[in-house]
């Protein structure tokens, strides 16, 4: 008997229309006079916070200035040099134990000015549950890694190897109840992007 797979593929081939051309997708996206400035504006529009840090060595100091970080007890950081980070994900056996993480610092690989999105890739790091269970998050991004629009982003990113990656644009939010915007739906209640200017 024909499997569902064969039947679907056969009926799709029978139904196929005459070939339509796949358009080349050039960078048709908007350019801003100042991509960094637009990025900061976009981050605030998606209910995030953008902080420019002049020197990577001042990262810890800038983090401590965030009230959410200052109050945090249990801190995960995938960015080196965060001295108060005290949860080693590699040492955690079960991701469910990360439910009480207060703060998670993640490395951003690329930022997009048009929508405030930051690309974060899991790579070999375990327990991405921590990224979403954490009450608050910060993303650390190099200022030179900000592009104008999504076309430029996908030109630069390598999509396809095994693993998880995502664009994060602001904190977890919802407007499901009478369209009132509420920050902190099920995931992080805040999202601060620290842009290292170098």
């Amino acid at each position, binding site marked *: 008997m024909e499997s569902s797979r064969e039947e679907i*593929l056969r009926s799709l081939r029978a139904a196929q229309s005459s070939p339509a051309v796949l358009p080349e997708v050039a960078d048709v996206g908007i350019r801003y006079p100042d991509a960094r400035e637009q990025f900061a504006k976009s981050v605030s529009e998606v209910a995030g916070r953008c902080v420019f840090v002049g020197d990577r060595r001042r990262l810890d100091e800038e983090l401590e200035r965030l009230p959410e970080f200052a109050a945090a007890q249990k801190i995960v950081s995938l960015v080196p040099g965060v001295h108060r980070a005290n949860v080693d994900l590699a040492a955690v056996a079960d991701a469910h134990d990360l439910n009480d993480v207060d703060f998670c610092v993640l490395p951003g690989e690329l930022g997009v000015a048009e929508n405030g999105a930051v690309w974060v890739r899991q790579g070999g790091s375990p327990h991405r549950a921590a990224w979403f269970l954490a009450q608050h998050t910060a993303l650390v991004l190099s200022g030179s890694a900000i592009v104008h629009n999504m076309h430029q982003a996908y030109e630069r990113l390598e999509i396809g190897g095994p693993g998880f990656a995502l664009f994060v644009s602001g904190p977890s939010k*919802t407007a499901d109840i009478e369209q009132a915007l509420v920050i902190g739906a*099920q995931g992080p209640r805040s999202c601060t992007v620290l842009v290292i200017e170098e």
Partner: protein
Amino acid sequence: MRATHEAHLPPAQGTDAAVQPPPQTPVPMNGAPAHPQHSLHTSSAQQHEHPAKAAAFVANDARLHWHDQAVWFIRAKRDRVSSAFPEWEQLRALGSQIKAHTLSRLADYLEHFEKKAVSLGAQVHWALSAEEHNRVVHSILASRGVRRVVKSKSMLTEECHLNPYLESHGIEVVDTDLGERIVQLRREPPSHIVMPAIHLKKEEIGQLFHQQLGAPAGLSDPKALTELARQHLREKFLGAQAGITGVNFAISETGGFVVCTNEGNADLSTALPPLHIACMGIEKIIPRAKDLAIFLRVLARSATGQPITSYTSHFHGPRPGGELHIVIVDNGRSRILQRDEYRRSLHCIRCGACMNTCPVYRRSGGHSYGVTVPGPIGSVLAPHLNPAAHASLPFASTLCGSCSDVCPVKIDLHHQLLVWRGELGRAHLVPIEKRVGSAIGGWILARTWAYRFFGKLMRSLLRRLPRALVYHRWNAWGRQRELPDAPRYSFREIYRRRRGK
């Protein structure tokens, strides 16, 4: 859904969904929840489905206007953000071309996607129908002894009625998008694909949470209600043995897929339990990763006026030590692909913009359509599965064309609605009043002399006839409306007189 939402935004973006099946039990707007059974039967009485259900909705005038405004508000936001980009129309054109191309080689792209997904460690399943989809999902869960499942927004699983199926097999399914959880607790279907609970007032949600989640009586602050749901849902995430998500885009080139949410619920659903099942319609495929730029730029902006959803997650293969299953579902879509005049409806990326702009949707509510995907796109898709059951839907439109204008992938929605009307009429699936009225109208409009004669006759009669002869049971239009005063002269008469002078 995944959700998308504004800087100010709502919930999640609708994931998939397409054609839907069976009408659902009508749901009262407030008050007793309807029960969840979805019946598949069709009867001639259901030919009047949309008008009858819409009548119940419009009976509450204040609520009707509240709903209209709430939905229009999102349309207005969509206008603001889309007009900020000079390339908006170019993005729509490119999105439409990419979809048209993909549909012309859909089998090849699906096969390539499968090959790449398998090479990344995913297991791929195919389902011809909603029933087969449900059986496949259940057998994956059952063979691993799963009793508790969390699900992020997936209109496809709504379309297939997966929840009742799994529940009937003793599996707890928790919808984790806030809006979906709200309607699930009320045991009613979503009324909008992006904002499932857009038809509810915060006081009703407060009462629901009071009854079912232990909220204090009288709580109606959205922030407090959301916080309560947060605690409730986080417990569910932590207790789940499997997570089910929809798919916004499946990338043929890489074998991966993208899920968009605002709440992060798809991420929590898949980062904790070891088993992830992703359900997608066959039309979710796009050729290349870089095509995502086009679709992600228009999806959330069209859906809620947000520049992008909070989380746009790219899954390539299972988590280390975990399992990933991808279920590819046809459920009537290949039949749509066979029809030249309807093929473009498969471009749909489930943004919901056509609903938000539709004057009929806004004033009749999502539940009046009786299908998982309401509004213009739902009215185009539903009759494919069961023309008799959904014959009223293509008439739930003014044919104003606003849906086609806002569609980010350029589906000719209002045109397809018109084509359906003709097809349903020829199949004798249209009520007698409409058939007779259309036949008379068509005969008159095809004859200049008849048009002039009857125009003149009616201008005169309408001013003289007793009310009962004008507003009667055959005049559906006049049920809630007053005809304007009949003009003394036709446009043609006025025009000729002016030119003559």
